């Protein structure tokens, strides 16, 4: 196949050629994403799409992130490749190598179930980039099934730690390592299938990048990496310039860590327009809580993913998530704090804290960007995990699910009821799939009435699910947030309702459970009730239109009592 002549590296590509190359790079991350989804074994990947793909260059810079990626995965993928580049000289990488890791402290991961793959891709004998993917495995060992529950206090309890190591060396699998990986996780057959899917995704990406290089030329692709990053960076600076200069401060709290720490502050100061920033935006989390014993600490890479998500959503939802975008945001968090965890802090439940980080970024910038501000959302990654042995089939099972909640009121319309919010956008598992695969019965799945904060545009409702084990005692573990501290409203909007885990006894009495319950047996006579938080409203409730108030009441999403309390008795 003929290809254009190679370029000098400093050659400027025109904006059309660049766009065509960008489209080709996006095609690679799309295809590898789909290949991973289609060939995975676990519902967590194939149904809930808890996976992502990206291209990273030999300088460790993000080139292209699949648009369907989970935002929290972004920095973790950078983390593995960054760790590889620190650990090895460039000439140590060989065609056919594939690296694997998950560890937050040696491989800049974000929690152990997220397993990163990175494959160096060579063109004409030279390293062009790394084809990366990440997938959330339903279990990676450790003290509790699902490797995500509360009750863990150091990284060793959370599962198998994988430093940056080769799973493939020059095209051959390192079988000894693979045996170690499989032995240390529950349901090893499912793990094997998911690992194979990640490997297949890397290999497809390698082939497709080489085809792209055959079309455009290696040097032209490398030049495009630089120029795409530079253009995106300039684009972000332009978006930041639209934010009125100033310091914006905000503070929220985490409920607790499950080990006695309560109301841990998450504090932020956003700075725009400081000449030292040269047009960038700074987020300083000084004043946030020190790291806690419970596992809701956030490794720095996960903090970066969260801030990047919030900035993109606020400033430019269509901006490519490449290094030029990341470099426009400066992030400081005190070392050893809950937002910049140090070894051996436990981090499995960091997504809850990450959601809170997004809330404080949005809260801080609300006065600066009132059209784009939203009320605080569910702001959690409420996880429920059931495990046990199915009496009918004799099979042991682990069932993990994260439950969405309310989305905050917006400048022109209400928040959404019962959705995953911000960083998380994973699907639920169908009730018919749950009951077919696990000995559980879902009694109810619906909205929590009155949980949306009142406002000119109200907050969304939280979700409620009632689960009962069938014919056996199940072991439940969970992680909840915004169970004690409600999601706030903006510009006069009222806060939404809090969530909670509850246990219903055989006689129908219901009592509250901790926000982060450890291993809890539940008998077939009992039922677990999970309710997630709603969301805060936008604008003063008295300005809500009569038609919308009538709809609130008529739909039975809100009770007459609630309407009277928040909107007055005239309706």
């Amino acid at each position, binding site marked *: 196949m003929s290809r254009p002549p190679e370029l000098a590296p400093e050659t400027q590509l025109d904006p059309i050629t660049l*766009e*065509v190359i960008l489209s080709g790079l996006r095609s690679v991350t799309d295809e590898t994403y789909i290949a991973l989804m289609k060939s995975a074994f676990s519902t967590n990947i194939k149904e809930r799409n808890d996976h992502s793909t990206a291209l990273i260059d030999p300088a460790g810079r993000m080139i292209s992130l699949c648009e369907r990626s989970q935002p929290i995965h972004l920095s973790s993928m950078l983390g593995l490749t960054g760790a590889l580049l620190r650990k090895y000289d460039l000439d140590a990488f060989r065609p056919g190598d594939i690296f694997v890791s998950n560890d937050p402290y040696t491989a800049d991961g974000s929690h152990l179930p997220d397993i990163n793959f990175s494959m160096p891709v060579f063109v004409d004998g030279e390293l062009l980039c790394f084809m990366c993917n990440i997938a959330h495995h339903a279990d990676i060992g450790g003290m509790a099934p699902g490797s995500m529950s509360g009750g863990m206090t150091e990284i060793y309890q959370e599962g198998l730690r994988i430093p940056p190591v080769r799973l493939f060396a020059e095209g051959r699998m390192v079988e000894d390592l693979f045996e170690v990986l499989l032995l240390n996780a529950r349901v090893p057959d499912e793990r094997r299938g998911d690992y194979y899917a990640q490997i297949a995704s890397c290999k*497809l990406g390698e082939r497709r990048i080489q085809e792209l290089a055959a079309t455009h030329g290696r040097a032209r692709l490398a030049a495009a990496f630089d120029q795409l990053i530079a253009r995106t960076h300039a684009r972000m600076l332009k978006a930041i310039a639209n934010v009125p200069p100033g310091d914006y401060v905000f503070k929220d709290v985490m409920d607790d860590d499950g080990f006695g720490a309560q109301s841990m502050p998450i504090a932020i100061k956003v700075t725009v327009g400081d000449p030292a920033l040269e047009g960038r935006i700074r987020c300083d989390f000084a004043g946030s809580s020190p790291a806690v014993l419970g596992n809701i600490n956030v490794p720095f890479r996960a903090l970066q993913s969260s801030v990047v998500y919030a900035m993109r959503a606020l400033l430019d939802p269509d901006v490519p998530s490449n290094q030029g975008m990341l470099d426009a945001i400066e992030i400081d968090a005190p070392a050893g704090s809950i937002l910049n965890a140090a070894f051996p802090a436990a981090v499995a439940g960091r997504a809850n804290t990450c959601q809170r980080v997004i809330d404080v970024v949005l809260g801080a910038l609300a006065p600066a960007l009132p059209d784009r501000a939203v009320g605080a959302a569910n702001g959690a990654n409420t996880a429920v995990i059931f495990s046990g042995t199915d009496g009918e089939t004799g099979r042991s099972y682990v069932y993990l699910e994260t439950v969405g909640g309310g989305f905050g009121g917006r400048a022109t319309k209400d928040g959404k009821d019962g959705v995953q919010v911000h960083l998380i956008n994973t699907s639920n598992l169908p009730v018919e799939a749950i009951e077919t695969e696990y000995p559980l019965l879902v009694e109810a799945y619906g909205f929590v009435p009155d949980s949306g904060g009142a406002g000119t545009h109200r907050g969304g409702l939280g979700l409620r699910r009632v689960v009962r084990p069938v014919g056996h005692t199940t072991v439940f573990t969970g992680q909840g947030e915004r169970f004690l501290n409600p999601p706030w409203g903006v510009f006069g909007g009222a806060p939404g309702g809090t969530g909670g885990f509850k246990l219903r006894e055989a006689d129908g009495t219901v009592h509250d459970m901790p926000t982060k319950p450890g291993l809890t047996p539940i008998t077939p006579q009992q039922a677990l009730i999970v309710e997630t938080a709603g969301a805060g409203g936008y604008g003063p409730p008295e300005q809500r239109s009569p038609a919308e108030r009538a709809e609130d009441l008529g739909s039975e999403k809100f009770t007459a009592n609630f309407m009277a309390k928040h909107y007055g008795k005239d309706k």
Partner: protein
Amino acid sequence: MSWTLGIDVGGTFTDVCAYEPATGLTHYHKRPSTPQNPAEAILAGIAELCEATGLHPRDIGRIAHGTTVATNALIEQRPCRVALVTTEGFRDLLEIGRQVRPSIYDLQKDNPPPLVPRHLRFEVAERVTRGGRIVRPLEAEEVDRVAAAVAAAEPDAVAVCLLFSYLTDAHEQRLGEALRRAMPGIEISLSCEVRPEFREYERLSTTVLNAYLQPIMSAYLGRLESGIAEAVGPVPLGINQSSGGLISAARARTFPIRTALSGPAAGVAGAVHLTRQIGEPNAITLDIGGTSSDVALLRGFAANTVHERWVEGYPVRMPSVDIDAIGAGGGSIAWVDTDGLVKVGPRSAGAVPGPACYGRGGTQPTVSDANLVLGRLSAGGLLSGSMPMQVEAADAVIGELAAATGLSPEWTALGIIDIAVANMVRGIRAISVERGHDPRDFTLIAYGGAGPLHAASVARALGIRKIMVPRHPGLLCAQGLIVADQLEHFVRTVHLPLDDRLGDALAPVLTELRAEAGAWFAAQDVAAGDARTEATLEMRYLGQNFELAVPYPDDGAADRAALEAAFSTAHDEAYGFHNPGAPIEITSVRIAASGRHHRDVDPVHTEPGATAPPTPIATRPVWFDRSGAVETVIYDRARLAHGHRIVGPAIIDQLDTTTVIFPRDVATVDLRHNLLIEVSA
């Protein structure tokens, strides 16, 4: 009674194709659509075709119809008061869906609203769980209570969807009977009848959509049938369904959701017919219109069937021809993003105002304007002369974009096409990898107004070597309707392991499904020689949630090893690997029943291959790449004959499209006047 009509109604045009099987004669007629009442353009189109050709309406024996009524109703969100009955505890399921947002980063973007508001969603005390086991029986008083409450709400249509009704439908059936008694004249959609398949939200959504569409479809078909009865007489009217076969109008009234993809599926049926005629089993169809492009992968002379898709933001669990829409077409607008990169689409100039070159007020550069600037489209417009081009307007809008990019107008125009093609290629690649195929092994069949214009660029970027442009690229849907079979699927959800006892376990299910198919053949008057059934098993590794379809031999000889091998091959094709020894399960059994209407005949005017080269009608400078314009010969498609061979560069104009032959590419005309293009390396 010897003629068959195929009628395809699109957003802009209504196409009528008449065909006489005995002689192979065809007539075509194209006229503007009447979106307010699509039946009007159909009846006018039939009358106009008859008048123009001398065909007597009473000689029409059968009509096959592709419609967009269902999708248009959803796009316009036409009001229809639907009530829903669902299992207690699950009133909000329709609104929760899969709890995901349509866009991760855009905080303002929402899914479309549920088609049944919360106050019209009724819960019923009953419960079925795994294995179809009833854990809470449905009491008679409860049935009466719910039926009365629903009737009191005075809905236009009712949907009923209960948990696990795909395994045990007794509760839904009893509710259905009571509702029909309480509300005679109101259509009741039961999920166990609409689509008895696993996964409650998708089944629920499908059932609700079906209920929503019933009154709309019923009114439309009523108008159409009475109009046809008056003008033509009592001839059978077949409606093309999304899975690519015809169903009776009565069935389309009961299950209107089956017609959601009626029109595009007809185009694919036409393309499948073409692959048989040219003997190319594997093809990618590329139908480029004004705002978007439809793409389908054909393998072994057949389109893939998918069992789930999104229709205007709502999930539908229903077999349909595997077509994907890509947001790039002739009207796609080119613009400069804030980072200076040039983007094409997703916004489109649409039919109004249309591209700047149409001279109807379009002020932004589009793909069509770029084609005009490059000389690929004739300044005189299409050969029909219906739409002369405004060259100055195109020059002006492309010139503005060129100034912004710092490139010459021609390079900018080339770039617009390159980017639009890159978008299409990205879409086709994603579709290919999702299906586990390499596009290089396929022939590209290009149709629609702008398909033949971009086919060579798309083919080259995908590594495709063969392109086929049918004789009438704008009429492929109507032609597809002529050749469509009468089709129906019968399905049972099962949960069976792949083991040596499988054959015994499947036998009664297959017997039942075949009996249903037999009854359907009888009802459709399908002659024994034209009736065909094909069984497939949906198989997966235990624990997987995506199934793969594996054909099940007709003789019922369920050789475990053969099935495992077939599944492994399918898994290899789809995912690049299989797991030897891993347990496999069968999740459902399907019978596809088809009744053949059409028998292909050789064209009547079999001419000897032309020996003299074709005569050009003009020449003009055309840009193919950045090296400059090339003086290029222009041919009139209507004057090309079987055996003609054209070496590019060349442009072939015809009434409804323009075909670009790139330098060194070679086009030949076959016996049926199809254009076959070999793409040079």
